[in-house]
């Protein structure tokens, strides 16, 4: 692609951007001739240059658009349709330009006849309108130069110029082109003077015409090659008139600037190194010159930085057009206000925020602003206002996107949060409105009821946030219902130089960007700040908040000790309190050195996948240091925490499973053999002693075997009827004692004591045997002691009748599901409880009101009419039942629901499928009860 063409493309793109903005303005003020002239001139220039470069397609469209605009100048009424059509043409020209650039100067194939046809149609219509009522429209006063030029062409002493072929439709003659050049200058002056004269009338226009005017003078100058090509005496004259302004600025390729920037960065680094050396030699003669070098370098750096700076208005350029289109699509009148467009920031940053800004403006127009009728109803002007404001604030630039719409609907966001499962209802209830509103930055979140072409695809605000965070910025949100919302973006002025805090961890130094550092906390023995631990999680109590802590070396996986949990020394350390987005946390480091302004160098591609680092740089002492990426750290922090939680919950899960499997945790079982080779087992806790008696000690009396044991007679019981004790040697037996009485269960052999879960898998009909369980991988009979005890003393249980009655707890079981009632009632009964079932809360209340005494209530949570939480709260309100233990039983067990249960007043919260858990919970309750009684 030759330079001329490249120049043309850059040039034209810029012109088109201006045309876009101007057209939108023109639509609002159809009688402003200055704007129209400006547009006309730009399009004319484009047309002319296209013809010169031999780009017939572009030329055709530009010509047709120009013709239509010519009609406006001649006084045709300006309609929205016409402006839209011209905008479409401009878009088409842009597309072709894009392809032209991609194709290295080849104009793409394509047919624009439809568009041109429409433009011509519109022109004809405009003609007709003018011929009719159009006469009333006063022709624009100073729109004449071109028309005059056309009629008075003889006044120009131009040599007649011809080309060797006939003109194509839409093509201009060289004369016309020449004239165009001449006129552009005249018009520029007009534009400038008009602006000078009438600043008060058009305050909002001052921003836009200024760059347009500044750019405009360049055009004739750059079109000089064209002009020079002709044998014309006017060339010199033009140069003289246009040169004064155009020489003030030159175009420099971005690459050149980038290179310059890199070199300056090197210079800064070298200077730092030199300063470091000189610092070590006290009386160095280098000191003074180096000081000067240092100053010059600093100024040079500033200067080069300044060349990278661009007004933020450049990023806003496309927005008026977008808002206009949106305004039409959505049928909402919208006004776009731009404040502080000349605020400068690094062009790299500028590029990065263009898209997020566009998206946010779209959002404001679509979601933020209400429909005109709603606005009227709310007592607001029909026209919605979107305000873009930019200003500097201490090394940062703040950009605000504000609308005066309805604000963010907190209730709808809440509903969405719950629907998306981003938080539970209970959690949402506890959140402040601001917290709820922040959820719109979550991935996949969009409150627009329907997906519109404008927004509502749910890939919005999270992408915006990500893009902004990528450049080390933050985005915040303020919204007042009915008043509007405002997004506040805070971004660094430049990405090239970052102020960082140099810290040490695991023997290495790292740089943490200051932007995300909130404060530094020194932790020492006896100092007011202490590192505390919740379980194994270190936290810092800082003012009114608990900060999660993690050691940097842990996050980076470079901790060298045995146990990473010990990386944090509770008595000594520095905590860098960091804030990333809404996340605040403490990063513990081994040492803090100083702050340093560093020039970020991109990481090698090979290392770019490490999200913990955003880059690296060379420090004053010549060593390379890695720059921490706060976002990466925040991410790791979150996953660090969640992995700890996951670990914990895994443990708990396993526990639960074990419980569910076994009925209880592992218990000690005594394995023995009696009467048969297969092993039998009895819980060791029930066995008082293991004894071996000499056979001779066994006496027989009253038809049963007895031994004298501790001054009393102890009856011996055999596992199977008809078994007998050994005839010689010693007889092992299990002694069970209770309330001064003992019984000896005669066994053949005590095999083992094992820790295992007593999980009876096959029940037994046989008296004396509870069932069979797997113990030590063998099927083992579990002995039912309750069967044998009465064999020793018939009244073993009888004499405790009274106590037992007192001990038998009456339990009220409330569940609307018959399935669960049927399933759990036997379980409770089997556990020795007297169970009364209720199908609902009202029945339960009836029973309670009737004076039926219960020791505990087990209640389902999910029930119709009145749920378990409400039931429990109601019971707790009644002074008679305030002390009544109540267990919640639910198929839904989440931390949140457990918390909710606790608040309602439940003593415990058990999963429905966790039968052993239920028994254990009841036992706990009554154990406490007994304990209290004792």
């Amino acid at each position: 692609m030759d330079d001329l063409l490249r120049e043309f493309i850059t040039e034209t793109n810029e012109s088109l951007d201006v045309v876009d903005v101007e057209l939108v303005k023109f639509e609002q003020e159809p009688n402003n001739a200055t704007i129209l002239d400006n547009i006309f001139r730009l399009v004319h220039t484009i047309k002319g240059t296209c013809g010169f470069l031999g780009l017939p397609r572009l030329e055709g469209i530009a010509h047709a658009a120009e013709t239509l605009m010519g009609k406006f100048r001649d006084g045709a009424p300006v309609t929205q349709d016409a402006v839209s059509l011209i905008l479409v043409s401009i878009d088409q020209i842009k597309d072709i330009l894009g392809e032209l650039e991609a194709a290295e100067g080849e104009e793409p194939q394509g047919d624009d006849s439809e568009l041109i046809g429409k433009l011509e149609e519109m022109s004809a219509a405009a003609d007709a309108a003018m011929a009719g009522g159009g006469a009333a429209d006063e022709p624009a006063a100073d729109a004449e130069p071109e028309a005059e030029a056309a009629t008075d062409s003889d006044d120009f002493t131009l040599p007649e110029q011809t080309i060797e072929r006939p003109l194509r439709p839409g093509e201009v003659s060289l004369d016309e082109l020449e004239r165009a050049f001449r006129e552009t200058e005249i018009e520029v002056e007009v534009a400038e003077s008009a602006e000078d004269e009438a600043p008060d009338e058009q305050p909002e226009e001052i921003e836009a015409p200024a760059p347009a005017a500044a750019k405009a003078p360049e055009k004739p100058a750059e079109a000089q090659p064209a002009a020079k090509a002709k044998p014309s005496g006017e060339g010199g004259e033009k140069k003289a008139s246009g040169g004064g302004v155009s020489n003030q600025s030159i175009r420099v390729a971005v690459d050149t600037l980038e290179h310059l920037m890199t070199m300056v960065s090197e210079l800064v680094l070298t200077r730092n190194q030199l300063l470091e050396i000189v610092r070590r030699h006290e009386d160095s003669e280098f000191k003074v010159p180096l000081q000067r070098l240092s100053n010059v370098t600093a100024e040079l750096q500033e200067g080069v930085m300044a060349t990278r700076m661009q007004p933020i208005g450049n990023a806003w350029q496309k927005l008026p057009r977008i808002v206009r289109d949106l305004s039409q699509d959505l049928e909402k009148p919208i006004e776009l206000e731009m404040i502080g467009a000349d605020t400068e920031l690094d062009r790299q940053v500028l590029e990065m925020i263009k898209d997020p800004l566009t998206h946010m403006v779209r959002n404001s127009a679509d979601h933020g602003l209400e429909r005109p009728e709603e606005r009227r109803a709310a007592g607001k002007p029909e026209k919605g206002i979107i305000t873009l404001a930019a200003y500097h604030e201490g090394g940062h630039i703040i950009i605000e996107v504000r609308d005066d719409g309805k604000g963010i609907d907190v209730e709808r966001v809440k509903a969405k949060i719950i629907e998306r499962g981003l938080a539970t209802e209970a959690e949402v209830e506890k959140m402040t409105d601001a917290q709820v509103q922040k959820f719109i930055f979550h991935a996949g979140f969009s409150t627009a009821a329907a997906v519109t072409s404008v927004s509502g695809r749910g890939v919005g605000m999270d992408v915006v946030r990500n893009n902004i965070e990528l450049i080390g910025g933050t985005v915040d949100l303020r919204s007042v219902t009915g008043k509007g919302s405002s997004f506040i973006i805070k971004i660094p002025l430049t990405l090239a130089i970052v102020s960082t805090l140099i810290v040490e961890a695991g023997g290495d130094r790292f740089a943490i960007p200051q932007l995300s550092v909130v404060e530094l906390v020194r932790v020492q023995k006896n100092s007011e700040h202490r590192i505390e631990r919740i379980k194994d999680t270190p936290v810092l109590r800082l003012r009114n908040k608990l900060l999660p802590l993690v050691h940097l070396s842990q996050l980076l996986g470079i901790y060298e000790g045995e146990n990473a949990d010990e990386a944090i020394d509770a008595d000594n350390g520095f905590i860098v309190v960091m804030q990333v987005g809404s996340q605040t946390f403490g990063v513990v480091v081994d040492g803090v050195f100083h702050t340093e302004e560093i020039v970020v160098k991109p990481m090698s591609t090979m290392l770019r996948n490490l999200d913990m680092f955003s880059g690296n740089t060379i420090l004053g002492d010549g060593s390379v240091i890695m720059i921490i990426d706060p976002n990466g750290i925040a991410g790791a922090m979150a996953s660090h925490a969640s992995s700890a939680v996951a670990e914990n919950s895994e443990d708990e899960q396993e526990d639960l499973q074990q419980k569910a499997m076994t009925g209880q945790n592992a218990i000690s079982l005594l394995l023995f053999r009696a009467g048969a080779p297969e092993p039998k087992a009895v819980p060791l806790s029930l066995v008082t002693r293991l004894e071996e008696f000499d056979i001779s000690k066994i006496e027989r009396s009253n038809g049963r075997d007895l031994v004298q044991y501790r001054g009393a007679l102890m009856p011996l019981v055999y596992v199977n009827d008809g078994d007998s004790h050994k005839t010689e040697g010693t007889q092992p037996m299990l002694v069970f004692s209770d309330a001064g009485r003992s019984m000896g269960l005669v066994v053949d052999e005590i095999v083992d004591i094992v820790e295992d879960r007593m999980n009876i898998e096959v029940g037994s009909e046989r008296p004396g045997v509870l069932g069979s369980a797997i113990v030590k991988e063998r099927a083992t009979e579990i002995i039912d002691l309750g069967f044998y005890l009465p064999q020793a003393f018939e009244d073993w249980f009888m004499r405790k009748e009274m106590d037992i009655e007192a001990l038998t707890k009456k339990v009220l079981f409330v569940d609307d599901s018959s399935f669960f009632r049927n399933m759990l009632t036997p379980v409770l009964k089997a556990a020795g409880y007297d169970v009364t079932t209720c199908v609902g809360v009202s029945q339960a209340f009836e029973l309670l009101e009737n004076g039926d005494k219960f020791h505990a209530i087990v209640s389902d949570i999910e029930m119709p009419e009145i749920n378990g939480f409400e039931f429990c709260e109601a019971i707790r309100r009644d002074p008679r039942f305030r002390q009544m233990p109540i267990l919640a039983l639910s198929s839904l067990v989440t931390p949140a629901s457990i918390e909710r249960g606790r608040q309602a007043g439940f003593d415990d919260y058990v999963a429905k499928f966790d039968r052993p858990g239920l028994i254990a919970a009841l036992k706990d309750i009554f154990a406490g009860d007994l304990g209290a009684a004792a």
Partner: protein
Amino acid sequence: MSMLENKVAGDKNAGNDMIQYVTVVIGGQLFGLPISQVHDVFVPESVTRVPMSAPEVQGVLNLRGRIVTAINMRRRLHLPPLQDEQMMAVGIEYKHESYGLVIDTVGEVLTLPSSSAEPNPSNLDRRWAEIAGGVHRLDGQLMVILDVDRLLGAMFTEPMAAA
């Protein structure tokens, strides 16, 4: 450096068939790098390690104002680390970025006819074969041609061990 560059210039005139190699020793084995790819030979000093990076990445270092990623060739070739000896590094450029291959020692520059290179023996350790671009038979020893593009290219595409 400048001497090497002179040789490169000379080499270009010498003919197409001859290739000059900078020889390096890694774990006793002689390797050759095409001289056109070698920019520097330097002593890797004050290397900053990069946490969470691939194990063969020794770290980053400052080489006359440029940040160079140092790759430990012993680790890359699955050889035991060199004990207490000064290592050397060869600076190369790959896709406009600077890398330093940390090796044991640098040897002489050899000019070898490209036709005498033989393909990798088929039984060569797979991990070696993927970065070796052939073998030259020299007097008394073999020189493995180090294929820089494959060596570094593989590190971009392979999932990082630590990641």
